[in-house]
């Protein structure tokens, strides 16, 4: 008994020791004399590492500022963290927010400072024309200023399995370019049983609703797709969207289309050889190149020829994330200058080029794109030019500049749910889009009500 008590006493003593040791061991590094700039990002893996590397290179290149990068979870958790920090009065200086969350960011009055204004405060030049047109348009305000700075940019393209094409008797060097061609190819693949499924898609709403809209210059709603201010209405229940969904529903029946989930999961169906064609983000190229055991090709996102003139579809729109600047009561002009200088560093051609080449994201500035072209990067890496060409050389129109609606993440999920119901045979495409319109509008109205100042 006595030894047991002794052991317990010893444990308590060691507990205190551990606590003290622990506090010392894990206390954060003390700040230096430089002005500290906090950046929160949501990138993982190699991309996150690279961004952190750029940060330390920026820090090494000057002595006034020190940018500290923190990973704050995937974008939703990160946004919650930013909200919590903002409400507690100490938000980060910079936060990386994904495309669909843009609408929510602009809601709160005064929480965000547009990037253009940050540069103005810092007396530094900021030229929106530096960015590739779709990226510039996506984050622009009506007066031409930019809300946030695009950094990691992607768009939707089509990958196809050359081996399966050959097996089905299709021309592996001439991928389908229109939806009717894709449908025919997929059905042929199934008829010849070249694989278990014809085509699949990742990011259902992003590709089938948003990219589909941009590709044919169809609006998602009014007020310049929500970019001109609050009070916008959605317009999702149109013939074009209905046809797209109905096509998927019909094709699901014989697996010429096979649904693979709302986000990135369906890519596995392509990589494993189950499906012959994949609609995917351009960033998915890396995983395919590394893991696929077959020859594959890249093509532009298909379009419906009867919706665009003379076989010239519009450009697609961008995805990815941009960097936003937070407002805070005790922020100094000096800190904003640091932010501006850091942004200048990130958008410089050497950094942007390095970023695009290494990660598979697209060059966000025109200069970076040109630099990559000049050094022959695209000839040496076939397939990497498809998304950029699609974005930059595609026709620009009023609806290729993206959108900005509040609660868009939820609205996307509404679309997901309704389309899933249709795929399960519980409703047809028209009903699915009708419900999406109805429920989406309710969400948007609630959002506006929440943000009445």
């Amino acid at each position: 008994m006595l030894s047991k008590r002794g052991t317990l006493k010893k444990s308590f003593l060691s507990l205190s020791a551990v606590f003290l040791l622990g506090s010392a061991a894990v206390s954060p590094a003390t700040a230096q004399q430089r002005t500290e700039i906090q950046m929160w990002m949501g990138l993982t893996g190699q991309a996150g590492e690279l961004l952190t590397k750029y940060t330390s290179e920026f820090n090494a290149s000057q002595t006034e500022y020190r940018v500290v990068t923190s990973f704050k979870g995937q974008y939703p958790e990160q946004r919650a963290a930013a909200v919590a920090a903002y409400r507690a009065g100490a938000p980060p200086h910079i936060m990386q927010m994904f495309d669909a969350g843009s609408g929510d960011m602009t809601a709160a009055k005064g929480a965000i400072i547009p990037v253009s204004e940050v540069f103005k405060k810092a007396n530094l030049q900021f030229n929106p024309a530096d960015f590739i047109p779709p990226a510039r348009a996506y984050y622009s305000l009506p007066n031409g200023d930019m809300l946030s700075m695009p950094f990691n940019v992607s768009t939707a393209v089509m990958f196809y399995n050359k081996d399966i094409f050959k097996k089905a008797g299709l021309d592996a060097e001439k991928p389908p370019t229109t939806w009717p061609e894709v449908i025919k190819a997929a059905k042929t693949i199934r008829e010849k049983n070249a694989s278990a499924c014809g085509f699949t898609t990742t990011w259902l709403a992003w590709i089938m609703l948003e990219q589909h809209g941009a590709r044919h210059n169809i609006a998602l709603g009014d007020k310049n797709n929500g970019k001109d201010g609050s009070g916008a209405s959605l317009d999702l229940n149109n013939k074009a969207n209905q046809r797209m969904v109905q096509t998927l529903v019909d094709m699901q029946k014989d697996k010429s289309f096979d649904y693979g989930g709302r986000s990135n999961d369906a890519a596995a169906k392509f990589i494993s050889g189950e499906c012959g064609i994949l609609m995917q983000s351009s960033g998915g190229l890396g995983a395919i190149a590394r893991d696929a055991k077959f020859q594959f090709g890249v093509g532009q996102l298909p379009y419906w020829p009867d919706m665009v003139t003379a076989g010239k579809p519009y450009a697609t729109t961008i995805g990815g994330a941009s960097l936003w600047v937070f407002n805070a009561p005790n922020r100094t002009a000096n800190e904003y200058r640091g932010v501006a200088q850091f942004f200048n560093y990130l958008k410089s051609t050497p950094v942007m080029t390095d970023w695009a080449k290494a990660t598979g994201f697209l060059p966000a500035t025109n200069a970076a794109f040109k630099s990559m072209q000049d050094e022959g990067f695209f000839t040496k890496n076939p397939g990497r030019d498809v998304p950029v060409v699609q974005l930059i050389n595609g026709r620009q129109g009023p609806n290729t500049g993206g959108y900005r609606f509040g609660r868009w993440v939820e609205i996307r999920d509404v679309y997901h749910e309704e389309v899933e119901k249709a795929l399960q045979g519980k409703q047809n495409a028209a009903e699915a889009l009708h419900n999406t319109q109805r429920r989406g509008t309710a969400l948007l109205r609630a959002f506006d009500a929440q943000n009445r100042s």
Partner: protein
Amino acid sequence: MNSDDYRDPWAWLPHAVLWLGVAVIAFPLYLTLVASTLTAQEIAQAPMPILPGSQGLANYQAALQTGSTFRMSPPVSSMMWNSFVMALVITFGKITISIISAYAVVFFRFPGRMAAFWLIFITLMLPVEVRIIPTYEVVSDLGMINSFAGLTVPLIASATATLLFRQFFLTIPDEYVEAAKIDGAGPLRFFWDILLPLSRTNIAALFVILFIYGWNQYLWPLLITTDQNMDTIVLGIKKMIGTGDSQTEWHLVMATTVLAILPPVLVVVLMQKWFVKGLVETEK
């Protein structure tokens, strides 16, 4: 009562059931091990091989030494240390304050007794994700953001441990208490000399569970700390798992996961040895 002692015709049954259980329960764990010995391509091709591959050494070396491609993340060793300290502090903290609270609620009578118990118990009913924003504000107001205290203290109030101890304390025979009173022992002596040793198996079980709970903390450390030096190993693993289109190096993730499981394994094995042994000696 054990089946291996004498000639029991059913002696094989428990082993059979246990093997089945192990197969089902531990299968994902086995898969993790296998995946940590493969290359990323092998993992992506369907179906993944069931037998270990040849990349084990390379993967573990990579996970431990380079870990991250650009060496921008803290090394695995420092993350494991952070996790270890945090888990240990949370575990000791939780067990200590829960056991004395349960003791108070069960072995005494005082006004507000049941109210206190329900107040503590109710904390189980509100999911952390919901109160996370107000909790963050409180922690921030107290100036505890980005501090070790902010990391551990809010997690130390555990209703689960209190409930378990309460259950156990209710089973202690009255004779023990009466005997202590007759001997002139006060409540504190009773606690140290009699109750604590009796609670050993419960403390051991809780130690395992709470250590793992503290070890696996993700959301709270994510919000509270911005300094990379305070990253825990689970945070490190999450950072390696790409979402969106970025490629995840699954073989490295799996290798790091296996490394991350080792300390909890150690805790489980040690707890069993220490406390079960003690129980055999002190029969109730």
